[in-house]
């Protein structure tokens, strides 16, 4: 028995943990931008933590249930309502057949993850239900959810009790300014020492172009390049390189002006130099940044990056324990 979509919110897509293994063909891994939030939401409703749920940006959908289910909303502070009655985020609550789940105005963060017991059971493509809209792959017909869609649900969710909740201290959100830790590398040597310093000293702001492919930042000083004769095949601009692969989280700065951090639906390659890469532990956080959020890039080394990764895994384990 499916869930009926009455209204879709903004860019609401079906996402799970993505489809690794096809990046060499330009098909990105995709999946929830804030992985921890989707995992937590799934655990709250008794799903496998990698099950597919909905990712909503700024505005939530309106969903009519045709069977009883448990629901949890994690990530952004997008307050859920059942038949107009408020419910808490990061907390399991029941929705009965015939009831409508809707949302109040966004209070913080950017992307809410809506898990429904059973998980969304649309057909998997290349091993994932994640929607990759650029390639019309996954989700429902490869696109965002629309009014009139029906979302099939899976079976086998473990019973969970109403009110089960992720402890406050395990909910992570961006501070202000947000801090994104970056490991310098890739084409770091292409900019001057002054530019290397400026990049980390300046406070940037999230631009309006911020989506599943990447986040653009504005407001820092222009980066100056080390002079060189452009190599054959690279193109004329000093920020150009011979088209190469782009790591997830890599920070490209076309013409040295506005950094772009590639995210889950990254373009797999192109012709712009990259100054470094946001560490894996901070990727989830990017998905919760609203446009205009002041942001600092913080320079770290590999050991710090790996320690942060362990911390992030520790937080996830603590959530698993708290909800088991």
């Amino acid at each position: 028995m499916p869930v009926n979509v009455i209204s879709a919110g903004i860019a609401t897509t079906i996402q799970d943990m993505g489809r690794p293994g096809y990046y060499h063909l330009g098909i990105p891994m995709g999946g929830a931008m804030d992985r921890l939030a989707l995992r937590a939401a799934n655990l709250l409703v008794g799903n496998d933590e990698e099950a597919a749920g909905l990712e909503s940006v700024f505005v939530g959908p309106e969903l009519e249930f045709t069977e009883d289910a448990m629901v949890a909303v994690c990530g952004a502070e997008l307050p859920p309502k059942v038949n107009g009655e408020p419910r808490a985020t990061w907390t399991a609550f029941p929705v009965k057949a015939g009831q409508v789940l809707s949302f109040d105005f966004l209070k913080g963060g950017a992307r809410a993850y809506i898990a429904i017991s059973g998980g969304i059971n649309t057909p998997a493509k290349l091993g994932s239900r994640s929607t990759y809209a650029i390639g019309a792959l996954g989700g429902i017909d490869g696109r965002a959810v629309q009014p009139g869609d029906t979302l099939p649900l899976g079976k086998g969710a473990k019973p969970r009790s109403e009110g089960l909740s992720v402890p406050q201290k395990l909910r992570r959100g961006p501070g202000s300014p947000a801090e994104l830790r970056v490991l310098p590398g890739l084409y770091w040597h292409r900019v001057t020492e002054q530019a290397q310093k400026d990049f980390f000293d300046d406070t940037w702001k999230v631009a309006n172009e911020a989506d599943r492919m990447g986040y653009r930042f504005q407001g820092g000083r222009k980066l100056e390049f080390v002079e060189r004769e452009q190599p054959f095949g690279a193109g004329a601009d000093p920020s150009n390189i011979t088209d190469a692969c782009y790591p997830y989280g890599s920070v490209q700065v076309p013409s040295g002006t506005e950094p772009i951090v590639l995210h889950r639906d990254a373009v797999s390659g192109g012709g712009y130099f990259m100054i470094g890469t946001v560490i894996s532990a901070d990727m989830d956080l990017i998905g919760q940044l609203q446009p205009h959020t002041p942001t600092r890039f913080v320079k770290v080394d590999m050991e710090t990056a790996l320690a942060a990764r362990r911390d992030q895994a520790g937080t996830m384990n603590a959530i698993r324990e708290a909800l088991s």
Partner: protein
Amino acid sequence: MGSRYTFGGDEHIFVEVDEAMSLEAFFVSLSMTNAVRDAGIKGVTEICPANASFQIKFDPDVIHPDDMMAELKRLEETAESAEPVLDTRIIEIPVYYQDPWTHETLMRFRERHQDPNATDIEYAASINGYDSVDKFIEAHSGAPWFVSMVGFVSGLPFLYQMVDRPRQIEVPKYLRPRTDTPRLTVGYGGCFSCIYSVRGAGGYQMFGITPMPIYDPEQKVSYLQDFMVFFKPGDIVKWKPIDREEYDAAVAEVQAGTFAPRIRNVRFSLDEYNADIDGTNAKLMEALNAG
């Protein structure tokens, strides 16, 4: 060549074989990525060859980044001793140059172009020293092209022209990227040709369009039923200029499920190619047109 190794955060290693594009650099990238695949290193999750570089994604919970780096450097020797020979395929791709759809699109974005008074192909012909667009099309479609990278978005091939460097076409990208490009546009930027696999933004100059889909997530196109992406690095392509009538006929065949791209298996040796480019290309064309 002296490859440069660098970390892309805690989950990627990026290896630049050469700053400049060349078939030599591409072959090193391809043999390195093949060596990584064959080595079956635990923790490797993505192996991505590119034009003159490559990238490995790995799980740092399984293998420490420094150990991953050491494994890759160890493989460099194996890869360098690999004979630069490739068993691959040559594919004929029909192109309707100067078609109405890319023309309509390029006219909408003239203010983002180097020469607002010329079309993309007129501009490319002129700056590459051709006195007519026809001569330029002859050059673009005369020699075969090497697929040196697949990526950007869904199955988009980057193609490198198989001629000596003085004859290689070079065209800058748009001053500012367009927000629209028709699906299956044959484009050009820097020293690379490409085919846009899906409609979307793009900065490459637009020369024409192919009737032949190269990406089909629904896998309804007859020759994409096994896998939704057509190209892989190492494929060789020969453009075949076609007119409107041939284009329409091909589109109808694709829809009817009867379009069969002309594909032949070939062996390519980089040493033979370097010794005699035109001779090697002539043999490739013979293979393509046989049977």
